[in-house]
C-alpha cells in the first residue's frame, strides 16, 4: 500500500504540471482584459502602461514559468519563513492578485474559513442525513418512506440552488423573518449569543447545499444497499440466525459503504471549491465568490492559483478514495 501511494504521488507531479499549463493556456486564450473594468476615461496608452506593469507584455510561456516559480518556489519558502525557517532572500515575488495587489495565497487564507464553515458544514450535514435515508429506503424498498425519499432526492437534484436559495430567503427571511438573508463575515463568535447568530446565518445556505448533496449521496447509498441486500452472503447471515439488525448493519451496511465512502471522498474537493452560486445568493464571501470576482476582473494570477489548488485537491482526493477502497475491501490489493 505504501509503495502504491508513493508511486501514485510521483505520478501526480507531471499530471499537475500539465494541468497548470492547460489552465494557464486557457486563461491566456480567453479574451478577458484586466484593465477592462477600469474607467473609460483612461487613455489607451496609459492602459498599455498598466498592462505592461502587470507583466502582460511578456510572451505567455515566460509568464507561465514566472507563475510556476512564484507558486512552486516562492510561496512555499514564504510559508516556511512564517514558521521561522528562512531560506534565501526574503524579498521574493509572490503570486500577486491583479485586482487587489495583495498576495493571492493571503486572499485564499482569508476566504477559506467562511467556505469551510458553510460549504463544509453542508457537506457533513448532507452526508449525515443521506446515509440513514439511503439505508431505510433500501431496506423498505417501494415503501411510503422510499417513495418520499426518491421524490425529495429528485427535487434536490433537479431544482437549482439559485432557486431553492432565493425561495428560502423569501420564505424564511422576508415572510417569517427567522434567518438573516446576508451572511455577516465580520461576526466574531465569542459568546452563546454570537454562536446563535452564527448558526442562524449559516442555517439557510447550509440547508440549501445539504439538500443538494444529500440527494446524490442518498441515491448512491440506496443503490449500494439494494445491490448487497440480494447477495448470497446476506442469506447466509440470516441462516446463521443473526438478528435482522445485525444482518443489516454488520453485513449489508459494511459492504455497501465501500463505494459510498469513495463517492463521499471524491466529493470533498468540491467543498474547498466553494459553492459559487450559493455563496453569491447568500453573500457568503468564500472561495467561490473570490473565484467569480477574479474571473470577472480578468485577474489571471488569482484564477490560475485557485483553479490549480482545486486541481490539486481533486487529484489528492482521488488518491485518498483509492487508498480507502484498498483499506476497506480486502479483495483489493494494490502491490
Amino acid at each position, binding site marked *: 500500500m505504501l509503495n502504491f501511494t508513493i508511486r501514485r504521488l510521483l505520478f501526480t507531479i507531471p499530471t499537475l504540471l500539465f494541468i497548470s499549463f492547460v489552465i494557464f493556456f486557457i486563461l491566456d486564450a480567453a479574451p478577458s482584459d484586466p484593465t477592462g473594468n477600469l474607467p473609460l476615461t483612461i487613455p489607451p496608452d496609459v492602459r498599455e502602461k498598466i498592462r505592461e506593469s502587470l507583466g502582460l507584455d511578456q510572451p505567455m510561456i515566460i509568464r507561465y514559468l514566472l507563475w510556476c516559480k512564484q507558486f512552486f518556489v516562492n510561496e512555499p519558502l514564504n510559508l516556511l519563513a512564517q514558521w521561522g525557517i528562512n531560506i534565501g532572500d526574503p524579498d521574493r515575488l509572490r503570486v500577486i492578485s491583479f485586482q487587489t495587489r495583495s498576495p493571492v495565497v493571503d486572499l485564499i487564507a482569508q476566504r477559506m474559513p467562511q467556505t469551510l464553515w458553510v460549504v463544509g458544514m453542508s457537506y457533513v450535514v448532507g452526508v449525515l442525513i443521506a446515509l440513514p435515508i439511503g439505508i431505510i429506503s433500501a431496506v423498505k424498498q*417501494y415503501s411510503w418512506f422510499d417513495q418520499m425519499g426518491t421524490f425529495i432526492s429528485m427535487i434536490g437534484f433537479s431544482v437549482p440552488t439559485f432557486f431553492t436559495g432565493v425561495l428560502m430567503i423569501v420564505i424564511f427571511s422576508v415572510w417569517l423573518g427567522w434567518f438573516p438573508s446576508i451572511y455577516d463575515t465580520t461576526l466574531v463568535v465569542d459568546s452563546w449569543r454570537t454562536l446563535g447568530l452564527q448558526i442562524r446565518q449559516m442555517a439557510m445556505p447550509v440547508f440549501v447545499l445539504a439538500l443538494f448533496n444529500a440527494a446524490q449521496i442518498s441515491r448512491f447509498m440506496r443503490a449500494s444497499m439494494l445491490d448487497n441486500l440480494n*447477495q*448470497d*452472503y446476506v*442469506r*447466509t*447471515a*440470516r*441462516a*446463521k*440466525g*443473526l*438478528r435482522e439488525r*445485525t444482518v443489516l448493519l454488520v*453485513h449489508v451496511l*459494511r*459492504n455497501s459503504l465501500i463505494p459510498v465512502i469513495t463517492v463521499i471522498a471524491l466529493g470533498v474537493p468540491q467543498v474547498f471549491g466553494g459553492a459559487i452560486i450559493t455563496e453569491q445568493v447568500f453573500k457568503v464571501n468564500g472561495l467561490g465568490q473570490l473565484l467569480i470576482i477574479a474571473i470577472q476582473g480578468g485577474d489571471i494570477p488569482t484564477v490560475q492559483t485557485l483553479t490549480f489548488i482545486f486541481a490539486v485537491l481533486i487529484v489528492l482526493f482521488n488518491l485518498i478514495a483509492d487508498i480507502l477502497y484498498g483499506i*476497506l*475491501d*480486502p*479483495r483489493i490489493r494494490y502491490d
Partner: protein
Amino acid sequence: MTPETTLTAAPKTAAPATEGDPLVRVRNLKMYFPIYRGVLRRQVGEVKAVDDLSFDIFRGETLGLVGESGCGKSSAGRAILRLYDVTDGQILLDGTDIAPLSGRELRRLRPEMQMIFQDPQASLNPRMTVASIIAEPLDEHRRLDRRARMERVFELMDAVGLDRDFANRFPHEFSGGQRQRIGIARALALNPKFIVCDEPIAALDVSIQAQVVNLLEDLQERMGLTYLFISHDLSMVRHLATRVAVMYLGRIMEIGSRDQLYDDPRHPYTQALLSAVPEPDPAAESDRHRIILEGDVPSPANPPEGCNFCTRCPQVKDICKRETPAFRQMSDGRFIACHLV
C-alpha cells in the same frame, strides 16, 4: 399397486409409515411469490414455486431432491429452513411446527437447522475472515469466551480439512473447494441436526466435487446429520441419497427409496428424467432408450389445469388434464402423484 393413503387432503393426514422416525415432516407446504406489475405495482399473480409438498425426512438419512432447473427445489429447501416466509403448510422440525414462527422464536431454532449454499464465493461475506465467519453463529447463539470460541473454530476447521493457519484469511484467497469447506464449517458450527445442502457441488470442479461429497458423507457418519440434498446431478444423488424425491413445476412427482426410483421409476416424468443419465459403459450407452420430452416447462405463474406434467407427458390421458392427481402411497412404500399408476 392400489393406493393406500392419500396425502393431499388435509394437514391432519397420517404420515407415511416408512422405516425410521422422521426428523422433519413437511405437510402441504406452499411457497408462492407475488408478482407485481404496472404503474402502481399491484399484485397481478403469483409464482407457485412450491405447491403443496408433503414428505418426511428421517433421522440420519439423506433425502435427495432432484428436478430440472426452475422446478422449485431450491425454493423448497429455503422454505423448509424458513429463509422465506412460507405461504401455507406445516414444517415440523422434531415435532415443532416452524412454519408460523418468526423473529426471536425462529432464531432460537436456527442452531438446529443449517444450510450449505450453492455458490461458495457469493455466500461468504467478502469482508470477514474465515475465523469470524465461522465464529459469528457462536457469538450469536452460544456464550463462549475468546479461547473457547477460537478452540471451536479450529476444531471445525480441522473437521472440514482446512489448515488452521488460514483462520485469518479472507474468502477470496481460497479456491472453490476450500470455500465450500468454509461454508460447511460455518453450517456445522452450532451442531445442527438437519442440514439442507442446496446444490453444494454444482459450482465446483468435477475433481473437487468428489472431495466435498466424501466430506459430507464422512461428517454425516460422525455427527449423525440428516441431509436434504438438493441437486440436478442424478448420478451424485444416486451415490449419496438413501431416498429420492423428484420435483416438477413446484410439486413432488415421485418419492421413494433410491433403489426403487433408479431401478424401477414409475412416474412418466421420473422415467424421462432418469433416461437422460448417461451410461458409463459404451455398449449399454449405445442402446440406452432416451425419452425425449416435447415442449417447454410451463410457467409456474400459470401452471396447467390438472396434473402439472400433463402438457409434456408422453402417456397423457384425458383425466390428467382435468384432475390434479392425488399424492398416494404405493404398496411398495413409495409415494407417487400420477393417475396412470
